[in-house]
């Protein structure tokens, strides 16, 4: 019996280590490529023969023709700016919508819920041409601020996870506070919000991530190199300029720099992410 257990343990661990290796290979490959001295995608061996930090230097201090389209420092600043603004406003919008829809019963509530359901079924960027036109009318094309506006304006539709979470907080709390003479606003700010810290962190984190991950809308709105976000800039580095050979290792270095802070954040805030994602699961 004991030997059987031992065997099972070894097999399970072997399986899990194997899976981890499979999942880590691409990541390891990017890191190795970013340190590789020879340019291009192709490399005769998986582990490069010579290492260099030149790719990271090129990223921030490009020389020659590359200086015209690689502006990584600028892209980082743009992205961080949009991310912070979007984090503040989207979180605010999402929490407000979710709270209103979970705690209040009013005439148009069901309509709003159904509308949100229907809007969610339209392919996300079907409307993008129209968004482009509207931004054009407002004179916001080729400006990162436009991204923040579009992201946070549409954010309210992502209220499901938070709404589910708000609904797990017993209504008795509200009633007790109401008897004590608290207004609904006070209940929201002083009682409910402090109880929903995990979901606030999760919402803030996901909305902070949006501009780092989004590519389609950003690529449509941002045109000149100095206005791009990292996603658009990096994509352009290997796709638009068709300079795959020269840029690929630099691109890999960029990927590492972009992914690094995000990964750190995910690892530190793991607890909130797990809680947030599973809160969304049960409600669907």
């Amino acid at each position, binding site marked *: 019996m004991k030997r059987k257990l031992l065997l099972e343990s070894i097999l399970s661990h072997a399986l899990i280590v194997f899976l981890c290796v499979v*999942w880590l290979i691409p990541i390891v490959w990017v890191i190795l490529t970013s340190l590789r001295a020879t340019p291009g995608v192709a490399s005769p061996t998986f582990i490069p023969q010579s290492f260099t930090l030149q790719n990271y230097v090129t990223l921030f201090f490009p020389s020659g023709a590359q200086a015209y389209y690689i502006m990584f420092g600028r892209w980082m600043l743009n992205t961080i700016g949009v991310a912070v603004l979007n984090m503040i406003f989207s979180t605010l919008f999402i929490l407000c919508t979710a709270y209103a829809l979970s705690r*209040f019963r009013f005439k148009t509530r069901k309509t709003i819920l159904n509308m949100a359901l229907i809007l969610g079924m339209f392919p996300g960027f*079907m409307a993008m041409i129209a968004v482009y036109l509207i931004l054009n009318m407002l004179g916001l094309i080729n400006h990162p601020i436009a991204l923040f506006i579009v992201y946070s304006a549409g954010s309210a539709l992502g209220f499901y996870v938070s709404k589910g979470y708000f609904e797990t907080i017993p209504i008795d709390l509200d009633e007790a506070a109401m008897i004590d003479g608290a207004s609904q606003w006070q209940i929201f700010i002083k009682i409910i919000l402090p109880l929903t810290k995990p979901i606030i962190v999760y919402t803030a984190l996901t909305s902070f991530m949006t501009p780092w991950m989004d590519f389609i809308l950003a690529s449509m709105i941002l045109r000149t190199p100095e206005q791009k976000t990292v996603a658009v800039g990096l994509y352009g580095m290997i796709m638009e300029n068709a300079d795959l050979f020269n840029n690929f290792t630099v691109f890999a270095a960029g990927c590492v720099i972009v992914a690094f802070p995000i990964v750190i954040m995910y690892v530190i805030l793991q607890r909130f992410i797990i809680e947030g994602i599973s809160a969304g699961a049960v409600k669907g």
Partner: protein
Amino acid sequence: MAVLFPGSGALLVNSYIKPILKFASFIIFTIYMTFNGYKFLIGTESFPGLNMGLYHGIAVIVVLYFWFHSLYKTMLNVEQKAYKTPDWVIKVKNRFRDKGKAFRDYRQLWKHCSVSEKFHLLSPFWFMGLYQILKKRPLKGILLFLIQAAYIFYMAFTGVFDIVDFFVLNTEFRPSTFNLVYGFVAFLLSGVFMYVYVHNIKTVTIYVKDKLYKIKPMIAELKELVDHRLYVTLLTAPLLGVLTFTVVPLLFMISIAFTGYQGASLNFNWTGLDSFGSLVLVRDNLATLLSVIRWTLIWAFFATFTNYFGGILLAALINKKLIKWKKVWRTIFIITMATPQFVSLLIMYQMFGMQGPVNQTLLNLGIIDTAINFWGIQWQARTLVIIINMWIGIPYLMVLTSGILMNIPKDLYEAATVDGASRTQQFFKITMPYMLYVTAPLLVTGFISNINNFNVIYLLTQGRPYGVGLVNAGGTDILITWLYQLTRTHRMYNLSAAIGIIIFLMSALISLGIYRNTAAYKREGELR
């Protein structure tokens, strides 16, 4: 009898209006089709600019559907000897009855009130806020009046023209796209104004009718906004955002599907259903559409189920009792989840490229002699897309399901162990049914979001391989990426909008059918 006489079934069980309407419309349609309509259908007669054949085809299908439906209903009723009115008919009826009652009440009120009260009652129709001003609430009154003045001003100067241009569409002085957007803005503003207008009439009527009510002062109303009407405050800004950057653009795109917007010209006309027609009636387009739809469904199915079951299995593996350092394994998978998709997908594409490390390693190990063109052959590319999607999606599903896995009551397993069930049996007899029960809605939403999964396909393959005999679409293009290609590369805006509507209809059919019947949806709102 019902075969020749639609609606007769309902007539037999004491219902008159519906069967007569049904029968009349059926007869009228039949007469029209036999004398004139068939000419359009077979194409001997045509109408300039409109695809009459298509309309007639659709009409025939609709009528046939209703005919069969009526037949089916009658048979059902004959069997059960009872005719039950559907819920929505009752709902609509009730609504009309309520409206009728409101009007009768209003007339009663009008008959029995004094001259000054009559003046009060009429005032909101032509001067919003007059009543409030007379009743010593000037701030409110002036505000209402300003709203009215602003609306009239707006309509007189641009609104009316915007609405006219919306219908004309092809105007000289500004692009048709602008006409559409301004038209929608005008409609929306009018809607909002009409709401305020009618609401004001209703309130004034209540005040006149019931002398006990006093108009609340402005301050009190503002206070309510942070108390029991807090939801208004909370929802206004988010909903305005959604309205301008989601709803208006969507309405715009939906209407684009009914225009001739193609190419660089911003001027176009309404063309009715022609863009749907050219998708469905042109042979090559139809072939492409069907092929892309087929692959979209295959893709969505496999992407959803591989990730779902992969995620559950992985979570079950990590949560096994004898596994050590659970946190380490979980963190590793969370790291892969945290890498931005555009990074991991672009990297994956290069990894499986002709010169990528996968080919290189296989060459070095001597397994193959020449590099494999993974993305060059359709079925290979498709398989690879699904496999790589597993890499992307399984960690997420793992995180999602491990919380639920840990919530499965432990005594279920203990009881099963006592009964002598093996671990494998326990997994299939306890874990899977429980998971399926709890996360069934997730499968549906996952399926829908995979139908619309632009990132994985586009960032990986951009639809490659091209040249597989499809019109403007590549071998791995799903509907949504095909839509994107049509927009960005080929500028067929109307066709892509039509495809967007098709995607919507697909998602709506799938999810409304399943989702509305799930417990989670029905429970909504009963939690308190």
